[in-house]
């Protein structure tokens, strides 16, 4: 029995990649890829399954959970911005396109085509649009060829400027195999223009990135060619970079093309410095929106998972996103990467226990302690930011003059940026526990200093009578 068992396994093993269909640079539909790689495809489809953990997931009820309802302070914090009208928990990859199309941030506010950068399989759409813009070559050329890249970038610029509605008609699938894999050999690759530019900007900065050794190495070279992850990065780095295509902080507003703000490094204050030094083509300083209640020009952080992970001990230990979120799973006699990308807490044994030989309950308890600490500090920090906003609103009402308000606006901007950096990050501090706590401590300090600055003001000089 044992023998036949083993020999059955062995024959199974050999059948693993039957080339049933030919995959090429224009094969967008994952179902086609699934014919050659049915196991990965099956698990990929399961990203449509809902779940929730204490802080992760979006429930299994079908509808995403509203983060605004969970935490009404966010309505105050995001006042005047689209996030105050609709902001939900993330769901599985299967929903990314649908959720974006349906959010009130899109249906009730005008949004650019750039939004699709991370919500659809657009590698081919970009290249097609690029060709229309006059980029050289054909679609059949390899993605990484100079022509392929020229097509990609030209199309990205063009689609980004379209209206969301128009752009959205050009794409059909959520993130698909072709966005992460080379169809010729299944090697992992990055295809998103924002990442390709962003990681080069990071490489050109002088900030140490010990967790990305290929960048440190590139820096020592002659730098004549841009840092190119598809050429330079190790396979292990690619197992994170492929996620860093989307799970990152970005600017995606109307004024310039979508970009990742990594020019001075990946830390919260380094990104802030990049924004603070940035001037839009129209001459304005950088800001995401003017706060509805206070008028301060503030920043919005979005899901900086790649950046936060970069500050943690796992990144430094070369543990990749895929190690935890796409752990190997045994299917019959073959080991594959689980393409049901989701919370590792749903399968601690595969995600954590090969490296951490502690009982499952113990590992979960460790995560919970880290997350609970983060949550408690985040509550504290949000309270402080809300208090500052209330105080600022009152000060305006009381007629405090604009000049006196400026330094307080600066403090609101700093505090809000920090609290949002942790809140928008989706691991509730797990990816870098001490760093998350540090950021929140700073948020508290700046918010409280803002309140203090207001109270230090002499009683409002221009106060309207009757107030």
């Amino acid at each position, binding site marked *: 029995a044992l023998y036949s068992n083993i020999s059955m396994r062995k024959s199974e*093993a050999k059948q693993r990649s039957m080339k049933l269909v030919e995959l090429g640079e224009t094969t967008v539909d994952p179902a086609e890829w699934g014919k050659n790689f049915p196991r990965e495809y099956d698990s990929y489809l399961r990203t449509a399954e809902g779940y929730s953990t204490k802080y992760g997931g979006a429930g299994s009820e079908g509808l995403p959970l509203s983060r605004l309802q969970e935490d009404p302070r966010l309505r105050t914090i995001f006042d005047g911005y689209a996030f105050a009208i609709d902001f939900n928990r993330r769901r599985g990859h299967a929903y990314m396109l649908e959720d974006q199309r349906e959010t009130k941030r899109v249906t009730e506010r005008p949004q650019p085509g750039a939004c699709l950068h991370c919500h659809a399989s657009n590698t081919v759409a970009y290249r097609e649009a690029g060709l229309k813009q006059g980029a050289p070559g054909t679609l059949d050329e390899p993605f990484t060829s100079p022509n392929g890249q020229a097509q990609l970038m030209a199309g990205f610029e063009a689609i980004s400027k379209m209206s969301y509605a128009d752009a959205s008609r050009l794409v059909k699938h959520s993130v698909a195999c072709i966005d992460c894999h080379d169809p010729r050999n299944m090697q992992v690759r990055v295809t998103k223009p924002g990442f390709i530019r962003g990681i080069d900007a990071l490489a050109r900065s002088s900030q140490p990135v010990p967790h990305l050794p290929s960048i440190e190495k590139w820096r020592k070279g002659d730098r004549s060619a841009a840092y190119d992850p598809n050429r330079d990065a190790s396979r292990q780095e690619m197992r994170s970079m492929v996620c860093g295509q989307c799970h990152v902080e970005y600017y995606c507003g109307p004024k310039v093309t979508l970009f990742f703000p990594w020019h001075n490094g990946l830390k919260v204050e380094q990104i802030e410095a990049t924004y603070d030094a940035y001037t839009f083509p129209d001459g304005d300083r950088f800001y995401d929106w003017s706060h509805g209640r206070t008028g301060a020009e503030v920043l919005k952080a979005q899901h900086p998972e790649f950046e936060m992970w970069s500050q943690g001990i796992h990144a430094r230990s070369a543990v990749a996103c895929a190690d935890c979120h796409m752990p190997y799973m045994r299917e019959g006699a073959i080991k594959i990467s689980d393409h049901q990308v989701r919370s590792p807490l749903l399968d601690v044994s595969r995600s954590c226990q090969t490296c951490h030989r502690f009982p499952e309950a113990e590992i979960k308890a460790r995560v919970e302690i880290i997350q609970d600490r983060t949550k408690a500090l985040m509550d504290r920090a949000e309270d402080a930011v809300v208090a500052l906003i209330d105080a600022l609103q009152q000060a305006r009402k009381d007629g405090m003059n604009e000049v006196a308000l400026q330094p307080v606006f600066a403090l609101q901007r700093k505090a809000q940026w920090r609290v949002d950096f942790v809140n928008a990050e989706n691991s509730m501090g797990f990816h870098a526990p001490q760093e998350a706590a540090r950021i929140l401590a700073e948020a508290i300090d700046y918010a409280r200093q803002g309140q203090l600055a207001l109270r230090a003001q002499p009683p409002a000089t221009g106060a309207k009578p009757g107030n």
Partner: protein
Amino acid sequence: MSEKRHLLWAGTLASVLVGAFAGTGIFTFFTAHGTAYLSDDPAACVHCHVMREEFDGWQHGSHHSVAVCNDCHLPHDNIAHKLFVKASNGYYHSKGFTLMNFPEPIRIKPGNASVLEANCLRCHGEITEEIRAHGTLGVPTDPYQKADLYGCVRCHQEVGHGPTR
């Protein structure tokens, strides 16, 4: 056997002897169970007390019943390679043990780490075929990267000797 093979053989045999003897001297070789060293018996390894921890760990490890030290730590591609590695290790072991000047904790070195990984694949090559499509994840040829961090043992470090932390 080709001419080349013969040469390799002879050379290797020589290095076994040179390795073992240069490290220990013939007298030491026998007293320290140098003969046993040439066998596959794990007991041979614990003749040196500095191998005690690994031995104890192995006894409690998941592979205790399926693999002995040499299954993992010696090459199995061809006998010449096997003897060569054995000889050079023998040299370092004896030298280290005699002079007691090796760094502790003892750590596997990159060369031996790639031997080790080849052995993982010797037994588990098929099951990992799909995930190895683009290389073994293995011991990097690029010395810039740290051997400790890559390869099967990045996740399965405890298979040989149980958990280390």
